[in-house]
């Protein structure tokens, strides 16, 4: 049995209560939702919060809701819910692609989208998904609510714009017609952190050319989407040479580190290979949406 350092625990009754608790207990308090990243770190004594503020009772944060041209997802929505949502799969197939390869059912039953985004692990899949879908993060704090683009939300590995006394409450994803998306991951074993992964989202114009596109990478040393990919793809008919060129951009843009999952050259190759695959799939799906 691995034993964490001593800590105190309190169960929040509402978002306001949680924010109040965060203010009261200060810098050494942490919000806990699914706990599948935080608890192992605590057991290994790599993380030593003095207070855990449990938000699992905050059902107000557990929702999936279509609101005009946005899909709103509460921060406490579990991975399993996202995986099983047919509405999400129809609008954003990338979410089901990614959720299907996030850890295992036990983790997916507990883990939340908010927890994943706030943990901001470089190998975390939903950050890439939200990046390429152009999502927004709704953050609440003592000063009220603020809404940030994903590019402003992520500050780097394990770092986000969420302040110590704030909470991520919601993710909003714009719904665009004639769009398709896809995600693919390479892992040594089911449930392992990604060796590398890529996600893409594509919106087609009425004439079948690419109106907008975004490609992101996971665990390959690239925050946010690949600069230049959208410029390369925009206005073009989807075709293999274009995907190859985008793959080349991805390989050049990424900055992976060598570890037990693989050396740099392999990871760079994956950035290329997976970028081609997800773009191909996203374009196919977008075209199908158009036909449908």
């Amino acid at each position, binding site marked *: *049995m*691995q*034993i964490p*350092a*001593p800590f105190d625990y309190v169960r929040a009754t509402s978002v306001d209560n949680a924010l109040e608790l965060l203010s009261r207990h200060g810098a050494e308090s942490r919000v806990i939702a699914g706990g599948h990243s935080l608890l*192992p770190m605590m057991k*290994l004594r790599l993380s030593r919060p003095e207070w855990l503020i449990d938000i699992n009772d905050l059902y107000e944060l557990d929702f999936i809701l279509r609101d005009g041209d946005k899909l709103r997802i509460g921060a406490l929505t579990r991975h399993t819910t996202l995986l099983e949502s047919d509405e999400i799969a129809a609008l954003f197939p990338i979410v089901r692609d990614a959720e299907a390869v996030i850890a*295992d059912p036990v983790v997916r039953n507990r883990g939340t989208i908010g927890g994943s985004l706030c943990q901001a692990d470089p190998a975390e899949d939903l950050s890439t998904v939200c990046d390429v879908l152009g999502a927004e993060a709704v953050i609440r704090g003592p000063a009220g609510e603020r809404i940030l683009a994903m590019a402003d939300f992520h500050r780097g590995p394990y770092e986000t714009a969420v302040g110590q006394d704030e909470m991520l409450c919601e993710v909003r994803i714009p719904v665009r017609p004639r769009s398709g998306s896809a995600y693919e991951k*390479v892992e*040594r*074993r*089911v*449930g*392992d*952190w990604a*060796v590398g992964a890529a996600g893409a989202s594509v919106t087609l114009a009425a004439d079948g050319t690419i109106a907008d596109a975004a490609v992101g990478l996971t665990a390959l040393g690239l925050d946010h989407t690949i600069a230049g990919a959208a410029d390369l793809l925009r206005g073009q008919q989807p075709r293999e040479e274009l995907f190859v060129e985008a793959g080349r951009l991805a390989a050049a843009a990424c900055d992976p580190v060598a570890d*037990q*999952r*693989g*050396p740099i050259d*392999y*990871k760079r*190759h*994956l950035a290329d*290979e*997976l970028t081609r*695959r997800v773009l191909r799939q996203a374009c196919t799906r977008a075209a199908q949406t158009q036909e449908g």
Partner: protein
Amino acid sequence: MTIIHERPSNPAAGDEDRPIGYGRIQRKEDPRFVRGKGNYLDDIVLPGMLHGAILRAPVAHARLVSIDTTNALAHPKVLAVITGKDLLGLKLAWAPTLSADVQAVLVTDKVRFQGQEVAFVVAEDRYAARDALELIDVEYDVLPPVIDARKALDADAPVIRDEIEGKTDNHIFDWEIGDKAETEAVFASADVVVSQEMVYPRVHPAPMETCGAIADFDAVDGKLTLYETTQAPHAHRTLFAIVAGIPEHKIRVVSPDIGGGFGNKVGIYPGYILAVVGSIVTGKPVKWVEDRSENLMSTSFARDYIMQGEIAATRDGKILAVRTNVLADHGAFNATAQPTKNPAGFFSIFTGSYDLKAAYCSVTGVYTNKAPGGVAYACSFRVTEAVYLVERMVDILARKLEMDPAELRLKNFIKPEQFPYANKTGWVYDSGNYEPAMRLSMQLAGYDELRREQREKRERGELMGIGISFFTETVGAGPRKHFDIVGLGMADGAELRVHPTGRAVVRLSVQSQGQGHETTFAQIVAEELGIPPEDIDVVHGDTDQTPFGLGTYGSRSTPVSGGAVALVARKVREKAKLIAAAMLETRPEDLEWEKGRWFVKGDPGAGKTISEIAMAAHGTMTLPEGVDGNLDAEITYDPPNLTFPFGAYICVVDIDPGTGHVKVRRFIAVDDCGTRINPMIIEGQVHGGLTDGVGMALMEIIEFDADGNCLGGSFMDYLIPTAMEVPDWETGFTITPSPHHPIGAKGIGESATVGSPPAIVNAVVDALAPYGVVHMDMPCTPARVWAAMQGRARPPI
């Protein structure tokens, strides 16, 4: 209409649905496990029990400058802090290993691997014990470590074991077997010689339950009760008597339900000894259970063999000789559990299933700054490494000769009429019939069709591989004149009592870690006596209740204790015969046995069942002269030889050419373990072993960085396979009984672990043939497969 089922003429023989003896019955132990009623070490709570925790070294090689325990002792819940200095006073700082070396219980002079035991805290609860570890101040003087075994014998390599007087290098042993000159001559005249260096990386058994102990020393009568996760309770009792100086009759070792062992629970770890010291010091029971990282970083690893293999053959594919040089990394202490005369275990079975003219190997063992251990993980005393070597070499030869690997194997098998077969390294294979097993495996696989599919896929640029492994194991150690563990001969006792009402209890020295002993051994007695298995209780795991024996590892339970149980049941049967003769007022020689009863020859109506005889034995009738009033027997079985199970495995893999990801699509396993006692248990053993094999072949490795930091210290880093990585196993069998074993059984526990890794790697290499890949080392992770496809296959260590 009423259907009347015809009763079998002999109810004691049972039938297929309810076998009284061998057959497919559900495991007797499973109801308690599936209902959460198992009793594992950590379930045991004794009155007043305290808890221990171990402070471990953060570095791989360092001189210990000082330890300050003041703050830890000041913790309100801490009762004792034990250091190496304390143990020196008790003469317990160093303990003998299972390989005639010594191992530090707590560091006194120098840290020799990361995770080594430095101090032991005893506290009122587990949390306090763990917290107090952080209150101990230790100063280390860090030294350069020896991590790469290839550099361990360099002249300028730091000397790890400088506490051994006169030790100036990291050399442990040189060992050789086979005729070197004869082998050289065969190689010199051979048409074709191929060679390959291959690494069997360090892996870990990683049982679901980690290791632990509860020591309860009674200062009044001097008795130590020691609950331990151990596969060998009797050997542990004797070793504790020797190490701790406690008289053996005052030690009781209890091994409760064990959640997986795989060799990991054969040795005595410092934590076990520290629990004993903690109990003696505090006068209370002390529990110590390691956590997952401690298990992975400090307990017995497996493999770590760097092997140079060579194979010689004629141009038309007759294999002539195999030769190998091995560099064996044993870690900081030589703590390998293996027979004394076999420093490289049973690696000398590397001659495989082939009729060779010559064979030779040499093995050099070295110390490195890594955790000690060496024989663990269902390896049959390094048969795993041997089978991997020869089965990879045969595939490499097949490629060179442009022959089908199945055809090459079929051409070179030892023929059935050659058994018993004396190989070139001193083994006498008891029995074998290899070709039918190979043909069955090919038939189940649809081998020709698979090759056709592969050709078509290759033309489309798809990567599909078919890998074969044909293994011969040597298990069931063993004849006591040849095999011992620290001087204790590897024979096993068994005791059988038939109660007056015909129910029985059999007592064993071996200890199940999940193998189903309570069922298998009951079935052996059932087969011999005709008592239903559910009427036979199997007692094991408590030295106060069971006869002496060496324990469960190396697939030895069925070959050794299984023989003992069959023989003790036959002894009871012979005694029953004498009593039955008296009951029937006839001569014993006029009786005939059918399962469950003795009857008068020519008069089947006149007979007595085992139940009737048992009641009579305990009753008032006058027993024949020399027959005492019970139906009990005991025996110690010294097997005349080892047994040699074999099998033919075929693996089919698909590889994603863009990512290097390997998917095991199919796996066909044909096993021959001789007589099959419970086919369901056998299949379960095979399924588990094959899953182990997928783990080793595709993902498992304990790596170290240049500073000696263990990179596999948690399940985040040390991967073990899940249901998602394995296919639906396809199993088959042939039956070639062992001629010398009482029931012809050979052992199955490790066959699949031994046989599957080469089949998987052969399949991966076969798939990569279009890229010119001849060999790649395990684990075949996506990155390593991709590197091999670029022509940059590299060893993992």
